[in-house]
């Protein structure tokens, strides 16, 4: 492949459509006679619905129907049918299933009307009476009920805690320097800008075309097909643009179920959009409590490491994330022990949220390492380097590549780390305490199988498609780049499309695996198309390519050329003509090389250095400067990749300083459920953010050598900030977010 555009900072190919409003989102598609559904949410946390009065709602003009558990259609009976492709073990939540209330904000009715305004007003008139039962929602008060999570298919991508190694108890007791610490994180909600919406277009023959907000159209199709017992071919899910996902779209949300149910019952097209408040009524990043014990030699060598985490889950599903494994993979510690438990509570099942588990676990271990560095009187970076490992101690296998050392070096140098004065509270200007902190980031580099289709059109243009998603990451752009370079075409001659179940199957967009996964499929399908082109060339009379094999040719400037003699060349357009003027089409599947990949641990790494300013009296914190160096294999597009890392860093600031959904446990209800009171950073919170990509070659992760950059940017950031705050103030805050009251 001649890299003309791969590795270049190409601007988003979909950027123009997005800023001009041409890009259409799920709630913007319409249909003749579209009906509008508005969801009524439960106001209690646990109990039963004893009475529903829909009279006032139904009496309003334009109201078509109010669906409740009492009049919903008969649906699939078994739990199995409600399991989407990302469902954790358990028994999935079924909207309008029966009179039981399982969590606060649960959908209890859908009001369908001719206009959105009518539906919205009518929804406020549905009167629901409940018989309340006592609920439990507070993780910290129910730690005694913690238990091992059930394991299921999910553990394929989310391995259980590593096996213990050595003898932790003995090593910890005997260690000359010991640290025992703990960290508490609250709930967080994804809150993408785009509200969850489904527009279900009801076809003449009862076939459904569904415009859905999802990170995986095939998952929505699968779910609808199972629950409503409709053949796949009669359910098409389309989702060309997604206004942010962050994991919230990994599972179909209840508006999809409700919209499909209503459309089928009413035999009419229906749209259901959730409100911002309702965006707080499904998956979230779970609250967690973590404990870490470290035992070290005076020179910093870790002898003993224990990392234990307890997270909340719902009563109906065991959500799991990988929280404790990272510490064991990052640091040698010959004696180590890991534990991960869940506490089922009366709330909705948590859901993967940007670097799920990774940012949680790494925040704890990297703050603990910082605490240890002060106990040892050692530079925090030195301590990391002292315990650096070239082999994954959890699995006792090498890393497919690990340029973390280079990340540390390059980021430290850019930041000016050597000028740091080690004592806490030793750097100040007036009331302003200045602190420098650092931390490490780690994230998975997984690959899954995926399919793609490539078509060289009669005009010599390339159209490539795969049913993946672009949740704002830049997928459209990098896939276009890969396809363009593989077949030697300019970007403007390549059209990549995604987000449609009529396209070849691909996994949902999540876990930073799309670049490697779908990218590989795009590369392979374009190569297959190239092979077809070569066949055509060979068949031409007196063809100079007659004896050429695929390895003997390359593609550049809309031509196929012989490597041995590049003056031997043929226009792709000529080859289309050679095909009788018909388009040339190929489909391919990229498989993972499990045999090869299984021998390695495949991670992306990062090093983060942060400067904070803390007002000594008022406790306000400003992150004035942050440098992140990332080793994530090959960077396909430094511009979109940098945006991903910066987005992650901003979210790291959010997690460290601002973000938390606060529940009033007396009611089991989230209280700050709107964007005025659920704080995420605004522009004024963001100062200098610097991103470095460290060169890293990896031919194990996938054929492209890319590791994905969607999540690594957030992982190390919260700990680096918390550590900088300690350096500034001498105060170690064990509960995120670090708001000003905790520093006064």
């Amino acid at each position, binding site marked *: 492949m001649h890299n003309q555009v791969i590795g270049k900072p190409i601007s988003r190919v979909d950027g123009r459509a997005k800023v001009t409003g041409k890009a259409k989102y799920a709630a913007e598609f319409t249909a003749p006679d579209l009906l509008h559904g508005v969801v009524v949410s439960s106001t209690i946390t646990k109990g039963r619905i004893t009475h529903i009065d829909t009279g006032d709602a139904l009496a309003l003009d334009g109201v078509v129907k109010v669906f409740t558990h009492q009049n919903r259609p008969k649906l699939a009976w078994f739990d199995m049918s409600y399991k989407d492709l990302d469902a954790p073990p358990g028994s999935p939540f079924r909207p309008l299933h029966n009179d039981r209330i399982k969590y606060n904000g649960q959908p209890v009715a859908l009001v369908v009307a001719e206009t959105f305004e009518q539906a919205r007003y009518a929804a406020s008139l549905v009167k629901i009476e409940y018989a309340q039962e006592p609920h439990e929602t507070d993780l910290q008060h129910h730690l005694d009920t913690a238990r091992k999570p059930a394991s299921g298919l999910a553990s394929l991508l989310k391995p259980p805690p590593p096996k213990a190694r050595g003898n932790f108890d003995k090593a910890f007791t005997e260690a000359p320097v010991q640290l025992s610490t703990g960290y508490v994180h609250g709930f967080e909600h994804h809150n993408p800008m785009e509200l969850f919406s489904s527009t279900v277009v009801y076809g003449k023959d009862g076939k459904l075309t569904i415009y859905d907000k999802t990170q995986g159209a095939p998952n929505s199709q699968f779910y609808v097909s199972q629950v409503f017992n409709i053949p796949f071919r009669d359910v098409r899910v389309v989702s060309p643009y997604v206004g942010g996902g962050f994991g919230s779209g990994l599972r179909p949300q209840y508006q999809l179920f409700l919209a499909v149910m209503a459309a089928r019952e009413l035999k009419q097209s229906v749209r259901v959009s959730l409100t911002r408040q309702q965006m707080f009524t499904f998956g979230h990043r779970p609250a967690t409590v973590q404990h870490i014990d470290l035992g070290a030699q005076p020179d910093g060598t870790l002898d003993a490491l224990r990392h234990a985490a307890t997270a909340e889950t719902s009563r109906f599903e065991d959500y799991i994330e990988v929280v404790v494994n990272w510490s064991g993979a990052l640091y040698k510690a010959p004696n180590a022990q890991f534990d991960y438990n869940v506490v089922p509570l009366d709330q909705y099942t948590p859901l993967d949220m940007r670097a799920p588990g990774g940012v949680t676990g790494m925040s704890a271990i990297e703050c603990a390492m910082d605490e240890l560095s002060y106990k040892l009187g050692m530079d925090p970076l030195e301590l990391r380097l002292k315990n650096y490992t070239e082999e994954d101690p959890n699995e006792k296998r090498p890393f497919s590549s690990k340029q973390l050392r280079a990340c540390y070096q390059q980021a430290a140098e850019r930041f000016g780390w050597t000028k740091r004065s080690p004592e806490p509270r030793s750097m100040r200007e*007036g009331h302003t305490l200045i602190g420098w902190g650092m931390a490490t980031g780690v994230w998975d580099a997984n690959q899954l199988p995926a399919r793609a289709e490539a078509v060289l059109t009669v005009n010599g243009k390339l159209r490539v498609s795969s049913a993946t998603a672009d949740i704002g990451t830049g997928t459209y752009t990098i896939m276009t780049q890969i396809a363009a370079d593989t077949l030697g075409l300019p970007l403007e001659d390549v059209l990549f499309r995604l987000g449609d179940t009529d396209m070849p199957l691909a996994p949902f967009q999540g876990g930073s695996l799309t670049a490697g996964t779908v990218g590989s499929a795009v590369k392979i399908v374009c190569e297959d198309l190239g092979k077809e082109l070569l066949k055509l060339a060979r068949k031409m009379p007196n063809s100079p390519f007659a004896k050429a094999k695929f390895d003997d040719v390359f593609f550049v400037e809309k031509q196929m050329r012989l490597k041995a003699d590049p003056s031997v060349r043929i226009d792709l357009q000529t080859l289309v003509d050679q095909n009788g003027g018909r388009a040339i089409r190929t489909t391919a599947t990229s498989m993972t090389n499990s045999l090869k990949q299984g021998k390695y641990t495949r991670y992306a790494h990062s090093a983060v250095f942060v400067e904070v300013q803390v007002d000594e009296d008022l406790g306000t914190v400003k992150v004035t400067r942050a440098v992140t160096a990332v080793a994530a294999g090959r960077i396909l597009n430094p511009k979109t990749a940098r945006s991903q890392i910066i987005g992650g860093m901003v979210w790291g600031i959010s997690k460290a300083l601002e973000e938390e959904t606060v529940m009033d446990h007396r009611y089991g*209800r989230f209280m700050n459920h709107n964007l005025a*009171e659920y704080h995420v950073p*605004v522009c*004024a*919170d963001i100062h200098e953010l610097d991103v470095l990509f460290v060169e890293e070659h990896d031919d194990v992760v996938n054929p492209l050598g890319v590791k994905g950059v969607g999540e690594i940017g957030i992982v190390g950031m919260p700990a680096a900030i918390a550590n900088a705050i300690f350096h500034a103030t001498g105060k170690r805050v064990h509960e995120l977010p670090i708001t000003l009251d905790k520093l006064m």
Partner: protein
Amino acid sequence: MKPFQYLRPTGVDAAVRDLTAQPDAAKFIAGGTNLIDLMKEHVEQPTTLVDINRLPLATVEELEDGGLRLGALVTNADTAYHPLVEQRYPLLSKAILAGASAQLRNMATNGGNLFQRTRCYYFYDTSMPCNKRHSGPSQGPAGCGALHGYNRIHAILGTESADGNVHCIATHPSDMCVALAALEAVVRVSGPQGERTIPIADFHRLPGDTPQHDNTLRPGELVTAIDLPANGFSHYNSYLKLRDRASYAFALVSVAAALELERSDASGDQISAARLAMGGVAHKPWRKTEAEALLVGQRPTPDVFGRAADALLDGAQGYGHNTFKIELAKRAIVRALSQAAKLEPTE
């Protein structure tokens, strides 16, 4: 939201008449930045909206006594950036610009800002108990959800009613009004009984046992303007706002500090006049002339400022999540006064 009738009068009298026709069911609407949110949440359910944007109340005028009249319909943005406000009342400019976002300030009006309702989470959620919202079953259950609940943003002062009970610990969320309190602005209103003026200190009220009422306006009254007295304390002033992010968040605690300094002798300055008001701590902008009196005649030092802070915060009480505000408020007052006296830089 509930369907409503929409009227668009062009004169003050007509607007007052439209409202008086249905005193319980009609509301004025100006920028709509607060009212429409509350209607969507069903916290407010007017059946008539009287849009006042066509009334001739959108000017800033100089007064004969050297003061300035700010029309009720002048936007917060236009007020903050008005050259006369910037020059003569920089404290007001700073306070307005510390609030909301540029987009909101472009819509929000001076009149509407006075009436913005509390940001108490329980007030906003009709399934939660709230005495302030409660006026009937459709407005959700009675009681105060915040009192023993999540009250991080709530009041620490003036919460007790005459009977010693606490019915509401909401705060008035405005930044602008804190500066108006320090500047001793006067609110001009027009109503069924004609015109009257209300000193800003008497405009908002404490919750007592009727937290439904945020202010002392009578039914049907319309705010036409806000008058600023001649003295704008334009040399020595500071608006310090502490919040959970650097912009676009309501104040946890805010301080409007304004001083006049006189050179008393060779060794330094003496405070000859002082104004001090706080936001985020009570149901109204919190000001006590006793606290200001402690400053007058003194040298501007942190100790003196601390004593004024103690006086202003006398009787402060925390309710759990918001207890930190008592200490934070004290430090904020000292800092704001130091900034006003130019002993400390402002950000």
